């Protein structure tokens, strides 16, 4: 790709973020006087720094080019990100073991694992994690509301 694109993009993103932060922070207000600094000062400081850095990057983008992924790479990245969100949504209804098995299988396939090996490894690993965390460390992981609804 063209040379300065990464820094230019980043600089623009920082500027947008800075403006958004400064705008949102306007409303942080308190009415009493014991706090001379107030809740607005720190967010505004952050916005100021973000904006300054953004301007600096736009003004003098580094010469180093960013190597963006190729088409297949973009596809895998999008798939993985969407699958994380789907995992978050399915965790409660499907329960930890089933949701994690599905997610890990998908990722294993994306990393080039063979179908059956991926499924088996994913199932075994998810079950191990569940046992280790729930019985070993006494943390609670979702069992799956779908199944408890059925069994009732």
């Amino acid at each position, binding site marked *: 790709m063209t040379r300065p694109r990464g820094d230019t*993009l980043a600089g623009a993103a920082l500027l947008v973020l800075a403006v958004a932060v400064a705008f949102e922070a306007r409303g942080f207000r308190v009415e009493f006087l014991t706090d001379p600094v107030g809740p607005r000062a720190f967010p505004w400081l952050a916005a100021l720094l*973000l904006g300054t850095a953004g301007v600096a990057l736009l003004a003098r983008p580094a010469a180093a080019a960013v190597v963006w992924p190729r088409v297949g790479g973009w596809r895998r990245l999008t798939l993985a990100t969407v699958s994380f969100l789907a995992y978050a949504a399915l965790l409660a209804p499907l329960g930890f073991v089933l949701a994690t098995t599905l997610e890990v299988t998908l990722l294993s396939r994306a*990393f080039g694992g063979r179908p059956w090996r991926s499924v088996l490894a994913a199932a075994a690993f998810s079950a191990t994690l569940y046992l280790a965390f729930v019985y070993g460390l006494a943390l609670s992981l979702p069992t799956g509301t779908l199944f408890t609804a059925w069994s009732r």
Partner: protein
Amino acid sequence: MDAILHLADGFAFALQPINLFLAVAGVVIGTVVGLLPGIGPINAIAILIPITFAAGIAPASALILLAGIYYGSQYGNSISTILLNVPGTASAVVTALDGYAMTRQGRAGPALASAAVASFAGGTLSIFGLALLAPALARWAIRFGPAEYFALMLFAFAALSSLAGRHLAKGIAATAFGLLLGTVGLDPHSAVPRFTFGQLKLLDGLDFVVVTIGLFAVSEVLLLLEQTGPGRAAVTSVGRVFMSARELSHTAWTMVRGSVIGFVVGVLPGAGGTIASFVAYAAEERVAGAHGSFGQGDIRGVAAPEAANNAAATGAMIPLLTLGVPGSGTTAVMLGALLGMNVTPGPLLIERSPEIFWGLAASMYIGNLVLLMLNLPLVGIFVRILKLPRWFLFPAVAALSFVAVYAVNNTAFDIVLMAGFGVVGYAMRKTGFPLAPVILALVLGPLMETNLRRALALSGGEWGILFSSPLAVALWALAAASVGLPAVLRRRAAALPPPIGPASE
């Protein structure tokens, strides 16, 4: 001299067979638990403390077990940081920079060995500091008011600016981003919700584990997905298992400096271990100058923060035991254990019941020693993790990340946040932004803001209070010097004809 005698008594107690056994058990359990990403020492101890009491172990022996768990989980954490780039605590974040770079170069063995040796060195040197300086340091630490804390944190940020190398703007942006993330949630001073966008789940703020695992582990998985090939092992060679004599002598002074910095910073209640590891790393990079390859797998970049981190843990005992102020989550849990023993920490503890103070010091030291003896021989086994095929290892890292993030608040919302930070981390790494300052700012930002606001509330809005004590002025000067000096040195180095050493980035 008294101190040495009491310390000897402490050791005599800690070396009884049952206590030694507990130390070993603690280190083993801690290492295994600490290996899990996001489950740092605090979680490990908090989870295991009820078990300790349930087992009916004598309180003093329980402390030894806890010390073992503490060091074990700290080291387990270093293992997943170095091998998989998944730091579980804020203080391990700097270790990831060079530790993971070494792993990618096939030098995971020396990196792990150096972490173990440096941790031991930090623990050893700081115990002497504790024995000799405890009372004096307690008096010094008490003089740290809000203004001094503010200046100290500013110094930590300034020291960190060197990590950004030539991309100062990117380092500042990363720090500002972390400060911003630190303000999310209900403002503790005014109860104004900030950047919560009506989300109740954001009122408590962003948890450090969620942000760190997103920025580091998830972005790593995304980066690896982008350039994937079938069935290869994660790292083709794991190389030597131990450090060479040259690496050991190369890092000896690094460990000493890291220990001193760690101990002194650790005495201050607050985010001692985190500031200590960042400052030690930055200091070491300054010392190395053009001869270092920091950020690209310099073994000193592993040794310095690991030594500092452990030394800070010892230093943190001083405010804990003399002021009753726990300086970190871990010492807070230790305080709980002490109170369970009917020991109330305070200024008179060292004088009235020296055996507790020195017993605890000795048990922490034994935990440290057992860690070295147990884990050094096992480094060869740990690095085998990297021999697992990519299609299994990286999805497994992702699954572990999900568990760790979910366990923080038991909510799937955190997994959505984690995915978001994963994408942000990916973009930051692609465009050359450093990740470590985000975490430091996220952890220190709220403390910095609190101290600033407290200082100004004390002075009634008079900004002069920030420069009112010699200590504060000295810290401001240090901060200014750590930003200004490298620029001057760089200009001078640029004036000389041939620049040696690898270019940064």
